[in-house]
């Protein structure tokens, strides 16, 4: 028997006379056999068994994990989309800023009307209808 075959059988928990005969002749394989048996004993001595949870507990965990995974997928989507949202917002802001007349103070309706030179009627504070209120005239109807 070759050492490789011995090791192959050893890992598969075989135990036969051929293996024992080989281990008697080969020091390396003998050491390996001792090591495997020793580890097995340690592992069996260290073994702990904890009872499994009930099925109801597992279903409760499924519900919890389901909602958690939904929340995390929403967060993941948000995190994935966030750079694009920021980029789009910045783009909109830049387009608004570079529009003709953008950023400059806009003319008032009155100035517009004057510039147009039309007969557009623009209400001013000089209009008799919009005369300043007199003191004590809370409703602005004293002069009418």
């Amino acid at each position: 028997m070759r050492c490789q075959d011995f090791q192959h059988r050893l890992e598969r928990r075989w135990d036969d006379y051929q293996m024992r005969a080989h281990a008697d002749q080969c020091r390396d394989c003998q050491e390996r056999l001792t090591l495997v048996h020793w580890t097995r004993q340690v592992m069996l001595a260290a073994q702990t068994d904890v009872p499994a949870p009930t099925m109801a507990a597992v279903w409760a965990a499924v519900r919890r994990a389901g909602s958690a995974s939904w929340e995390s997928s929403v967060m993941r989507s948000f995190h994935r989309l966030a750079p694009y949202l920021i980029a789009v917002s910045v783009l909109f802001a830049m387009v608004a800023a570079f529009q003709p007349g953008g950023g400059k103070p806009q003319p008032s309706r009155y100035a517009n009307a004057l510039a147009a030179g039309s007969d557009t009627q623009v209400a001013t504070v000089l209009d008799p209808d919009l005369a300043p209120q007199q003191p004590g005239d809370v409703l602005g109807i004293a002069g009418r």
Partner: protein
Amino acid sequence: MSGVLPEMAAAEDPDLPLVLRVQQGDAVAFEELYYRHQAGVSRMVSNIVRYPEVVPDLVQEIFAKVYLRFESYSPRLPFRPWLYRVAGNHCLDFLRHRRRQPLQVSTTLEDDPGREWALPDPNAERMQSRLVARDLAGKLLLELGPRDRMLLVLKEINELSLEEIGAITGLRLSAVKVGLFRARKRMLAKYQKLERQSERGKPQ
């Protein structure tokens, strides 16, 4: 990665009919799968993690994860290695997270004066030696890294084949053999170190 197990094995997987039913939304089939594998997964988790108080929670989370991932499961790999792979990764994640927190694990007999072996019992001596051995074995296992521990637990406690361990860990067959051998060697080295320490601590 999972090429260690031939696809033929997946077709002969005894869990396959149940898995297909679960994929069609059959909750009863999932419960059957749970009862079939709960003991093995609990044994694996409790021996890798070594904190009995968290084991039921971890097992619940593992099965919940598996249930929610059934849609993505492809029967190319048999169900058990797939389940154990999810369980193994969950244990490693837990240990990684736990490592950042301070541990409070009793590993010496002196820590707990009310232990069973201290009771007046005719078999006390035998029980004591058994408990000392168990304690020492537990300590040796804890001293190993999580990956070494996982390999040894899967091989010696869950009694899985090398091929299955390969499918679970994503290692080739030769890497599984080498990994097991090194894990055993490291365990022996830890034992020898502990033994030297106790020799030095003995009164002259």
